[in-house]
């Protein structure tokens, strides 16, 4: 019964890619206009953390329904938890429930854990396949870009740090859009994969 209602895995990747793209664009907009202008409408403060938190909730079904490998299950679980954690901490700061600016470190921690999960659950070498290459790239990108939210915790007005943080989500979205052999970006190149099977 469950198998009958499960979407194809690539669709799930593209849905999350769309979510990350939206996250990135919202963060970019905030970085460009600055926190003061962005905060002129109070609801705007809640957009990206709220989206992040909701994406975390939606990642849980991915963890529970795609159980054909234990390590993928654990990786998806860690992304679900840290998306929720990051969104929850930022929402708390935006709402004024959390007062310390160091709660912003939650985003940095989330990127470090997510990047590590990408690298640990991808056991192949970089150039083994497109998926392997993109998993390694996504993992290292998350680890390197974790420096931006770390900088934001200490320099909240830094446009450079805010833009870097936003760029991470856009880069991740592009990676998720093209990590399958029938991807919208770079298409179906593989001879090994045969004809597109879906």
């Amino acid at each position, binding site marked *: *019964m469950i198998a009958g209602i499960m979407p194809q895995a690539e669709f799930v990747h593209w849905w999350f890619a769309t979510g990350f793209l939206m996250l990135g664009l919202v963060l970019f907009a905030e970085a460009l206009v600055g926190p003061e202008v962005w905060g002129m409408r109070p609801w705007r403060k809640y957009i990206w953390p709220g989206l992040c938190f909701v994406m975390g909730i939606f990642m849980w079904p991915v963890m529970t*329904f795609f159980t*054909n490998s234990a390590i993928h299950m654990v990786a998806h*679980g860690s992304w679900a938890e840290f998306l929720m954690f990051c969104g929850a901490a930022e929402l708390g700061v935006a*709402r004024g429930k959390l007062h310390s600016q160091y709660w912003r470190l939650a985003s940095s921690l989330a990127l470090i854990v997510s990047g590590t999960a990408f690298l640990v659950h*991808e056991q192949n070498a970089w150039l083994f396949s497109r998926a392997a*290459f993109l998993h390694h790239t996504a993992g290292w990108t998350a680890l390197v870009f974790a420096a931006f939210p770390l900088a934001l915790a200490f320099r909240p007005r830094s446009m450079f740090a805010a833009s870097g943080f936003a760029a991470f989500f856009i880069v991740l979205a592009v990676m998720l859009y093209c990590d399958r052999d029938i991807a919208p970006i770079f298409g179906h*190149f*593989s001879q090994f994969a045969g004809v597109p099977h879906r």
Partner: protein
Amino acid sequence: MRRALLVAVLAALALPATAFAHASLKKESPSFGQELHVSPRQVVLQFDQTVQALPKSIQVLTPDGRDLAGKPRAVTAQRQIVASVPRLPKGAYTIRWQAISNDGHIVSGVYTFGVRVKAPPVTSAVGAQGPTSTENVVRWLYFVSLALLVGGLGFRLLIVRGPLPPRAQRRFFWVTGIGAVALLQVGIVAFLLRGEDMLQLPFSLFIYGDLSPLASGTRFGQTFIAMTLGFVLVTAFLYLAWLLDRVWPLWVAFGLGLFFASGLSLSGHSAADAGHSWVSELADWVHLTSAMLWVGGLLMLLVVIWPGAPELRRTAFLRFSKLATVLVALLLAAGTYLSILRFPNVHDLWTTGYGHVLLIKLSLVALALLWGAAHHFVAAPRLAAGDGGTLFGRLSRSMLGESTVAMAVLLAAAFLVNTNPPPQPSPRAPVAAHVTRR
């Protein structure tokens, strides 16, 4: 330089993109948990990408562990592995499979099927050894987390209905939040431990093991899915209550918590063993939720009210004392009914392992009840009469003692859940299967 980098990236992306990492089983014959009317001639495993067969790629195991499968071979563009089997007599069989994925990793899995009998759950596959002591401890942690979360919410909504002082409010959200996070983590650990036992693989192979037969083909797995998703929602509403300073999300979280706690009752002895019915499932749920509310309430008194809201100690204690009486009555009534159901003979209490664990649990429950009775009949009247001061200090230590005993009761309950009850009397002994080679 920039152009070379771009070309390198495009070339890497164009390299063989064989779906995602390693191969997954897409279709199999016989299928998971299938009950066949005639013996299959062969076992066919179809993967989503090319695979290589290993000498033991397909094992068809009898209950006594004999492998009946012929030599496995990869066919149909290397996406299928096939092995012939002799004519199988009536009985239950386990298929253990392994294949080399084209990423070089070994992917593995296990499932069961039956020939003219119902297939056993995959957790009872040949080689699986059943719950270990680690699983018992993990289940205990699950119970404790459930008590912190659901019991804590119940206490907040039913006992301390008004606003809490900020310090107590903070403590309440810390305690229930820890319960919520722990519940999700412990649930995942419990699922992985059961999967490890089912697959019987070393860790390096287990991480690529296929857990989908456990997730979708067993009550345990379906409960894991439902309870995980349900308690994610509970966590989200708990968080919303904290963020918005509103009480209504707590009610939603509490309702969802009580509802999804039923997953344990719908997957345990009361739903699967002989004599089960909707009454036994309901009784199990009442037993479980009463225990959670009782233990969770005690812990909230001890950790939230006593240190965080001294002005509410008297009211909270007296109200909880009344609620605890009702909870204990429900707990005992449901527990007695379930014991009668699970014990065909009274002597099973002292002649079976299940009986021994139940006796230990009953002794601990009796101790906790005596402790609770002392609170109800000695401490509560004194508090109602306006006594306080040193009594509050002594009550704090006394509640710590009662909570410790309650934790021990939950530990005994965890062992009890993972122990098989005594068998119900059967009219006929099962016929042993024997194998004829074609």
